[in-house]
């Protein structure tokens, strides 16, 4: 039971990383400037690397003899537990950066807390990933400020991205009885504390960027339970094509 809860927990982390990594990979060769093309794909690579470690751990917890590729490529849409935020389309550069910023501001304090987890493999993955995530958050925060406090056009686009993405942010802090089980065992942190930390980062950066936090608290959730937006199927079609067309193929 407890392994089942931990499996689900690790799978959520892994799916968030994989799907966001896949989205960022779409920028390869299309970045607004060369340096940014390289930065976005570097971040993508870190996320996919983190996903591999997390899927390895999830496979071990599941105990069904699967490997990371089988978890990444051979599940159905409703078996993916990523938040809706990470599957949203890249949009313009502002949309991509704001989506990444909201995610990084959540992931950094989460990894910092998970470093203290008594589940040693999870603590090790967090300790490894936290260093990478610090670079990501610094990079996206600086872009949010540069765009918000930049030209009228960049300000407007950054604000539009915030207004659009805000509805997907509450799901980052979604908790159910599986989380509660793990929290009772002190294996994972409460997301309430992470949310406070996230809000602090978001407020600080958006204030500096002269951007406004939306007052509309309309929420879109469902990803953590496997109910996804219409975009998810297209991502999986891209992601899974090779393994579905040529089962067990290796690169």
């Amino acid at each position, binding site marked *: 039971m407890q392994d089942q809860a931990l499996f689900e927990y690790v799978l959520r982390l892994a799916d968030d990383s994989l799907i966001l990594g896949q989205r960022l990979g779409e920028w390869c060769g299309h970045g607004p400037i060369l340096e940014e093309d390289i930065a976005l794909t570097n971040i993508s*690579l870190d996320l996919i*690397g983190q996903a591999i470690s997390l899927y390895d751990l999830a496979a071990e917890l599941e105990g069904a003899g699967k490997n990371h590729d089988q978890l990444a490529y051979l599940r159905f849409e409703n078996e993916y537990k990523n938040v809706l935020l990470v599957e949203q389309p890249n949009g313009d550069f502002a949309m991509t950066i704001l989506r990444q910023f909201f995610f990084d501001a959540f992931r950094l304090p989460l990894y910092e807390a998970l470093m203290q987890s008594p589940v040693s493999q999870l603590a090790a993955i967090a300790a490894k990933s936290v260093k990478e995530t610090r670079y990501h958050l610094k*990079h996206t925060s600086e872009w949010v400020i540069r765009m918000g406090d930049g030209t009228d056009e960049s300000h407007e686009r950054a604000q539009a991205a915030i207004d659009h993405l805000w509805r997907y942010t509450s799901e980052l802090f979604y908790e159910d009885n599986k989380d509660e089980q793990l929290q009772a065992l002190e294996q994972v942190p409460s997301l309430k504390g992470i949310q406070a930390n996230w809000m602090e980062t978001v407020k600080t950066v958006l204030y500096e960027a002269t951007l406004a936090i939306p007052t509309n608290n309309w929420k879109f959730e469902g990803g953590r339970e496997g109910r996804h937006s219409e975009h998810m199927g297209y991502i999986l079609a891209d992601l899974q094509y090779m393994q579905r067309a040529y089962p067990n193929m290796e690169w």
Partner: protein
Amino acid sequence: MVNAAQIRHYLEEVSDPEIPVLTIIDLGVVQEIYFTDPTWIIELTPTYSGCPAMQQIEVDLLAKLQEKGIANAQVKHVLSPAWTTDWISEQGRQKLRMYGIAPPVNESDKSTLFAEPPRVACPKCNSMDTRMVSLFGSTACKAQYQCKQCLEPFDYFKCLK
């Protein structure tokens, strides 16, 4: 029979596929080497989670040991403790500089926004008058810099702590 010190010595002949001037020993990714009958276990730590060089390093490492007559070797990936640029040897740092890559300076560019990027000496002319072009570079472990004195663009092996 071969011992762990000898194996470590052999691994000095295996280079990093992306920065061929460094051996994997210089890079500090080889951890414990031990014998669990009937297999030699070589522990490797990844530099970055998604570093694609790790797979190639594993292939090259096993091929090298095979060449030295050690067929019973196996690589074990360990994440903890997490790799840090502090583990790059002094010799490795010198080789990086000679190769045109500025080695990590001892300060990590942490979360402070718009903080002055680390001051890095140009590997060509040693000038400290350089600027960071981008926090991300040609591989996960590098940032892009340019020297304002000799105008040379160069890679900086960024500090990971």
